[in-house]
């Protein structure tokens, strides 16, 4: 009791911080709300219009009507699925090597991973195009895939390494003491423990790939991904179906994120999960 009375009086929290937070949040929600709303606008033309002409689900029912849009979306999905799988398969051993072993060139590899994340997309895109030009590789689906794997590996390494560092390496030592060889230790101990990290890394890689415009714009050749299609269409006015796709992607992404959050919370203490989401979010830069 006495130490409470000794303490200097606490200041009351002013409401301004909360008001500021919610006002800024409100502003950032404007594009989301407008996108959803106008995907239901009964526009007279096949371009989005400013006037509100009543509610319709016509654009959703005719989602695949726009020339090239569906194809672009499918290409984006294909690249995202393949590049996230490849980058998890290649990136996980790199992360384990960086997190668990000492070897020559470790600092260099860490540096490259960091530079890959920090480098501006425009430079990475331009440099990739220079590279593909100098080895005479025609730009197209293959070069998109290669470039996406290249930038996704770095994110996978960071996320998986973060998961590894939160895991006690004594567990692996114990497995080896009990006679498990390196492979058994990896498949029976390490892999099950870092599994949520791999899933988070794969989802992050998928999201980065599906949404990339700048790098892809350089090395796409004649292929068109979803962001490239939207960018091209934005100059003449978007077809309402783009907003429908945007709304659907938004909802699916949100559901996956919530489900993933719930999943990791079951496996770990809530706090660890939050930190992991934050790390993944930070590296999404």
């Amino acid at each position, binding site marked *: 009791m006495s130490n409470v009375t000794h303490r200097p009086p606490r200041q009351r929290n002013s409401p301004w*911080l909360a008001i500021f937070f919610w006002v800024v949040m409100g502003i*950032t929600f404007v594009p989301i709300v407008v*996108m959803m709303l106008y995907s239901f606008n009964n526009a007279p033309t096949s371009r989005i219009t400013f006037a509100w002409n009543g509610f319709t689900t016509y654009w959703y029912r005719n989602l695949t009507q726009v020339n090239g849009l569906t194809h672009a979306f499918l290409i984006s999905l294909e690249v995202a699925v393949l590049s996230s799988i490849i980058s998890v398969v290649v990136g996980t051993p790199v992360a384990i090597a960086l997190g668990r072993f000492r070897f020559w060139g470790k600092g260099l590899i860490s540096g490259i991973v960091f530079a890959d994340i920090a480098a501006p997309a425009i430079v990475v895109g331009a440099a990739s195009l220079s*590279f593909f030009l100098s080895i005479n590789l025609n730009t197209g689906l293959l070069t998109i895939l290669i470039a996406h794997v290249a930038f996704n590996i770095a994110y996978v390494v960071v996320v998986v390494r973060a998961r590894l560092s939160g895991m006690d390496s004594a567990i692996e030592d114990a497995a080896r003491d009990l006679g498990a060889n390196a492979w058994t230790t990896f498949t029976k101990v390490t892999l099950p423990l870092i599994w949520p990290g791999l899933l988070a890394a794969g989802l992050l890689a998928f999201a980065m790939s599906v949404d990339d415009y700048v790098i892809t714009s350089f090395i796409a050749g004649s292929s068109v991904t979803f962001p490239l299609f939207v960018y091209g269409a934005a100059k003449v006015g978007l077809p309402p179906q783009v907003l429908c796709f945007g709304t659907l992607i938004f909802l699916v992404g949100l559901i996956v994120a919530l489900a993933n959050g719930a999943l990791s919370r079951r496996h770990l203490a809530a706090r660890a999960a939050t930190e992991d989401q934050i790390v993944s979010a930070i590296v999404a*830069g």
Partner: protein
Amino acid sequence: MLLFFLIPLLSGLIVSLETGNPVSGYTLTWNWHIYSQLFVHSDIPYTTFFLRSLYYGVATTILSILIAYPMAFYIAFRVSDRWKSPLILLVLLSFFVSFVIRTDMWSFVLAQQGFVITGLRDLHIVGKNFHILGSSSAVIGGDIYNNLAFMVLPIYVALERIDRRILEAARDLYSNGRQVFFRVVLPLSRAGIFAGVLLVFITTVGDPVNSALLGGVGTYTIGQAIQDSYLTNQQFNVAAALSTVLMVILGIIMFAYARIFGTENLENLV
């Protein structure tokens, strides 16, 4: 990664030293003069584009800190643990909308016939010729909007790591709220600000999308110049030279920044 990240950066340098034209192709001639041609005697003001991009980068970074810090502070110190994750998810919500769509939605909202400007005009707050799109403010606004979360999250992580007992100790030693903030909280969150600056500044300086969708002729950035000289004009050597210079400039700025405001905790944060 070595193959597809580091080697391309070097090949960018090599391509910049080639000469030729889009029709007959390019050959390597170690043409170092390209660098002086682009910046000293050039018909196209690349230096202006560089300076403009750096200005957008600096303005966006500073304004992002001023907006993001109170938001991160609110989540870290003013809400209960239960609400922290949901609020972080709200901060990230914009990322669930495709980058190009959400940026273009702003150009839709802020257009001359969009509801913001027509509303302001009807209320006689602004004149007939008032416009937002095409201005530097629109581009900087778009950059802040697209990068805000990259500033909020690292600052939040840094604030969250501060041991609450230190704040109690400061109060017990009769610091007022202002002193606790400026002498304890702010210095301890320096690593978070550093990480945020790194992410936001680099992304903004190289970005071609916000200036293309929200800007106009007066907001042409180096990102657009690199993209156009590669994809529209097919001046591969020019584009490669510009992107090499951009990389070097950003490298120098970030290195200097790290030396001046040096932080040891960067590895832990990123």
